[in-house]
């Protein structure tokens, strides 16, 4: 909220600079996000009078104006700024002789970034600039130049002429203090406590007896929970016109556009004490069907009363609101209605029909208290929010409506004349009670960890308008009605703590048991995996959890398997991902612009639908290998690396087999399921070229995914030491030709079955196809290592096993190459 420094000073004596005040507020839960010095950057801009306007000789849309900036204008910003009369080239359409305008003199640097210099515009020298509102940072208007009041003094500075001597703080009022601090008095109350000053009381009492209900009004509240209080007053014979400068500038400083004196008064009251108000044109509202104009006459008869009801809207009711939009209301919306129809959406916005305009003579001021959640629902359903709804949503003190009416009436009499012959109608069936909170004094130290003396506690709480009484070690606090945030003991202790200052609390180590902590296995597995992958040269990426339809269908995944967002940021962020593949392919494509080979992985969550349509979150490790120059063996690269990753996790041997029901993005001839303990723990393989095409990829991509949760069961198995074999090892190579469809797993099985325990290792090192071989054949070369644990093998023993291997392989159609 925008808070004016000058306005605050009306409530409390402030002896420190605005900057110091901002710092103080920021350190005490009122964060000042911005300080605006109103007159800043406007030096060298003065009031001038247009004396003469000539057409520019070389440009149709430009004119040359002669401006008098008076003798005071002589105070130079730059030395050239001597002449009393300046000739300025100007393009604005709204200028006229005799107008008072704002002139930026030579040398001035104005907020839009322009430095004013003497320069020729289409051949005519221009010695300054006649400014528009937006160029001076005073508003957004760029329709034409800014025309000042004709009484403005020629030569005075813009700061003086427009009263720009204030400092505005943009303060982040947090929800707990939005009940009482979306107002100047609320912030001033805090400032007074922080500066140890007294709040200056203002006397707003009405001269008439305000306790007497107005006889001109009959107010009926249908639901006392939704409308806690409704206060209203009728003023007759007001003169609706433009507000005086001081009032307009107060509102403008706080970002509210002045409308007319009556409306401005309601806004002024709201900014002062936080009570939103509304003003109705009494004549437009009462007995609209009769169209008579007799309200100014004294009315005492009951049937002449203006009847206002606060009720729920009826089905089918509409209202044309002040923003010129028609809103469809429903039974859940609270409205202010006359006898016929709604005249305002309660707490949100008034209706246009009963609006106060220049022709209004008689007005009704409303200061009510509506239930926050009700207003919030209506405001969010209608997508309509206002300064008023913003405050009501946050619940305000029902005690302040009368003060608001008093302020408004007094101001109206001062600024708009008018007459209030009658009392204030005030319907307040269940007056707010002050909350009482009792607690043991030791709770303060128990929570804050610092001892604060009873006297200090007393002073802090009373300065915040709490009433405090002690009984032995028990403290009882009566909470002022405007502090709706104070509900429990801790709330009171927070007040004590924050005013006393957290900087006074020493750091004290918590007294906690020394205990070893067994950390979560999943997280340990993830860390091991990451470290291994880092060692293997992988880059870790983080991608968004959201995907677009294009990525999903491009990856041949099914849209209906994905959870959809109600309110996505954009089309690319519509669904929760069920696979890390799509974004890894995006990453691959993007990075191929800069390098030819790389390895990527992401370890993240996917969001699957379970059978009951609930979100089933899984952790998954996915990665890709890309190498433009080495395509055929990439699959085996990944396979080898997966082995290393899983060896780090446990002892389980991996096996590979065809994927059952593979997702369509796999290349079915070049992909496999990875199994450990016969359970699938992941998949590896090439991505189908159709999918690659969808991602503008032309090189092969090998991809893998591992389900982290499946690794938990064999994580941390102890690795048993194997005795180092001291006997010599014999290595013999064989090269055998097979049919293309014979798989290595079969070959290896046959080799191993040639001996119970003397074959230590079998390792293929080459596959040959082509010359001298039939097209359907391949030749596999492998090395067999023979070793016994208890003796040196003889040549004869080795030969026997080797012969057995050869004959075993013949069963598979193998033929030894000589």
């Amino acid at each position, binding site marked *: 909220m925008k808070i004016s420094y000058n306005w605050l000073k009306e409530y409390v004596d402030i002896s420190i600079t605005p900057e110091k005040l901002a710092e103080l507020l*920021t*350190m005490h839960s009122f*964060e000042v996000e911005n300080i605006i010095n109103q007159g800043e950057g406007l030096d060298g801009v003065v009031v001038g009078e247009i004396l003469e306007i000539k057409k520019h000789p070389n440009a149709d849309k430009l004119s040359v104006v002669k401006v008098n900036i008076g003798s005071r204008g002589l105070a130079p910003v730059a030395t050239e700024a001597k002449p009393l009369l300046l000739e300025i080239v100007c393009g604005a359409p709204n200028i006229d002789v005799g107008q008072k305008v704002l002139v930026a003199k030579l040398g001035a640097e104005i907020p839009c970034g322009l430095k004013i210099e003497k320069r020729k515009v289409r051949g005519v020298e221009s010695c300054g600039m006649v400014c528009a509102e937006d160029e001076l940072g005073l508003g957004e208007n760029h329709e034409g130049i800014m025309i000042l009041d004709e009484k403005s003094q020629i030569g005075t500075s813009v700061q003086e002429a427009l009263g720009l001597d204030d400092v505005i703080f943009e303060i982040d009022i*947090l*929800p*707990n203090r939005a009940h009482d601090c979306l107002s100047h008095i609320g912030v001033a109350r805090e400032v007074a406590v922080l500066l140890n000053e007294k709040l200056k009381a203002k006397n707003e009492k009405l001269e008439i007896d305000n306790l007497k209900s107005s006889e001109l009004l009959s107010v009926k509240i249908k639901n006392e929970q939704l409308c806690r209080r409704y206060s209203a007053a009728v003023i007759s014979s007001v003169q609706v016109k433009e507000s005086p400068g001081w009032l307009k500038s107060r509102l403008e400083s706080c970002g509210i556009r002045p409308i007319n004196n009556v409306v401005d008064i309601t806004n002024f009251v709201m900014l002062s004490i936080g009570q939103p108000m509304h003003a109705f044109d009494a004549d437009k509202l009462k007995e609209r069907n009769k169209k008579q104009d007799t309200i100014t006459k004294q009315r005492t008869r009951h049937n002449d009363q203006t009847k206002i009801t606060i009720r729920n809207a009826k089905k089918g009711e509409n209202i044309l609101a002040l923003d010129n939009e028609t809103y469809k209301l429903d039974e859940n919306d609270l409205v202010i209605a006359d006898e016929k129809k709604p005249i305002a959406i309660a707490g949100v916005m008034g209706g246009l029909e009963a609006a106060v305009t220049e022709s209004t003579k008689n007005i009704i001021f409303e200061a009510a208290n509506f239930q*926050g*959640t009700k207003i*919030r629902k209506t405001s969010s359903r209608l997508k309509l929010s206002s300064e008023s709804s913003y405050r009501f949503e*946050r619940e305000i003190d029902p005690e302040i409506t009368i003060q608001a009416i008093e302020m408004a009436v007094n101001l109206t009499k001062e600024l708009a004349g008018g007459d209030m012959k009658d009392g204030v109608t005030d319907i307040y069936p269940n007056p707010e009670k002050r909350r009482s909170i009792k607690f043991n004094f030791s709770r303060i*130290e*128990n*929570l*804050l*960890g*610092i001892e604060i003396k009873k006297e200090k506690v007393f002073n802090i709480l009373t300065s915040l308008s709490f009433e405090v009484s002690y009984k032995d070690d028990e403290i009882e606090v009566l909470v002022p009605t405007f502090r709706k945030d104070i509900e429990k003991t*801790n*709330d009171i202790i*927070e007040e004590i*703590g*924050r005013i006393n200052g*957290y900087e006074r*609390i*020493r*750091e*004290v180590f*918590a*007294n*906690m*048991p020394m205990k070893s*902590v067994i*950390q*979560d296995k999943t*997280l340990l597995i993830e860390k091991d995996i*990451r470290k291994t*992958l*880092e060692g*293997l*040269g992988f880059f*870790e*990426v*983080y991608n*968004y*959890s*959201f995907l677009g339809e294009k990525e999903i269908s491009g990856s041949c995944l099914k849209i209906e398997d994905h*959870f*959809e*967002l*109600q*309110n*996505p*940021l954009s089309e690319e962020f519509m669904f*929760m991902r069920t696979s890390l593949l799509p974004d890894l392919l995006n990453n691959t494509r*993007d*990075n191929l612009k800069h390098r030819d080979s790389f*390895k990527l992985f992401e370890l993240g*969550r996917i969001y699957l639908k379970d059978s009951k349509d*609930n*979100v089933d*979150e899984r952790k998954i490790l996915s990665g890709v290998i890309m190498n433009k120059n080495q395509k055929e063996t990439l699959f085996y690269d990944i396979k080898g690396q997966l082995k290393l990753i899983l060896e780090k996790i446990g002892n389980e041997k991996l096996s590979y087999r065809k994927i059952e029901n593979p997702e369509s993005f796999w290349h079915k001839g070049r992909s496999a399921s990875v199994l450990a303990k016969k359970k699938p723990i992941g998949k590896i393989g090439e991505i189908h070229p159709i999918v690659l095409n969808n991602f503008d990829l032309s090189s092969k991509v090998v991809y893998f995914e591992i389900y982290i949760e499946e690794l938990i069961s064999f994580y941390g198995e102890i690795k048993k030491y194997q005795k180092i074999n001291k006997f010599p090892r014999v290595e013999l190579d064989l090269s055998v030709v097979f049919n293309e469809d014979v798989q290595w797993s079969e070959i290896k099985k046959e080799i191993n079955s040639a001996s119970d325990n003397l074959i230590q290792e079998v390792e293929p090192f080459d596959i040959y196809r082509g010359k001298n071989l039939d097209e359907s054949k391949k030749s596999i070369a492998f090395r067999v290592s023979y070793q016994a644990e208890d003796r040196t093998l003889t040549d004869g023993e080795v030969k026997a096993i080797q012969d057995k291997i050869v004959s075993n392989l013949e069963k598979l159609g193998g033929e030894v190459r000589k």
Partner: protein
Amino acid sequence: MKNKINEIKKRALEEIGKAKTFEAVEALRVKYSGRKSELTNVLRGLKDLSPKERKEIGELSNHTKQIIESELDKKELKIKNEELSHIDKKEKIDVTYPGKKTAKGHLHPLTQVRYAIEAIFKSMGFLVVEDREVEDEFHNFDAMNMPRNHPARDMQDTFWLKNGCVPRTHTSSVQARFMEKNKPPFRIISLGRVYRNENTDATHESNFHQTEGLIVDKSGKVTVANAKSIISEFMKGLFGESTKIRLRPSYFPFVEPGFEFDASCPYCKGEGCRICKKTGWIELGGAGMVNQNVFTSVGFNEDKYEGFAFGFGIERLAMIKYGIDDIRLFHAGDLRFLQQF
């Protein structure tokens, strides 16, 4: 014979002394120590001697042979070392030529910061836990003292799934999940991804990461003073021993009292610089004593326990630590960015 041996010895040592090359030494070895050496020739006459003389001469000749061989070895080593002493010059390389490129992996900077955070808290006896990212309304909001239609919900722009679930807006939901399953005392942290429906720019992301911490114990055993020390120890662990912290009162629905915590700027040590916007302090996160309503919502007796909770953004820490100026880089998957960490 004795003389002859001594003469051979004298001559041999002289010649060894003069030898300059490896080959010369080898030739001398053949001449004086091999099977056909002069010494061997002389010893052929041993058989004509008396046993006593034989013994004497035998010892002498063995001794002489040892001396000659040892001198030969010494000379050989000397020549070898001499040659090697020139190798520095002979095999000189250009050390300014770049080292061979080795493929190295890179963990994401957020992972690295995450593990750094975890390590500090683990050293203080914290348990690292995780829970759901897609939450129900209760755990994300209601249990955290943010009932429906409460303006506090406006503090966080929320995504909703069509099935009514919420991609969590903060890791605070883990507090509720953990307390439902565990009894105090405990101290935990939880790091993970959160979601906000905010337009993205250099400092705002829709997907980002937070750290949540929670300590609960019997009332009186966890105080603001303890909270200050935990935050302070963490910040020292992260930014160095001289780091200072301060608390500013603030509001979060799930704590009371609530505060924001700042650390002294690690770049200018509190002097004021560009990173800390000339304030000397860096805003890092929110914290506070667990609101009694949160305890009630998870079924704890609110009068019996007191707790301290804190939370902060991991991206923000990483940005400060590495001087990164655009939060969007973390999710861009650009290796030119990632390889720097």
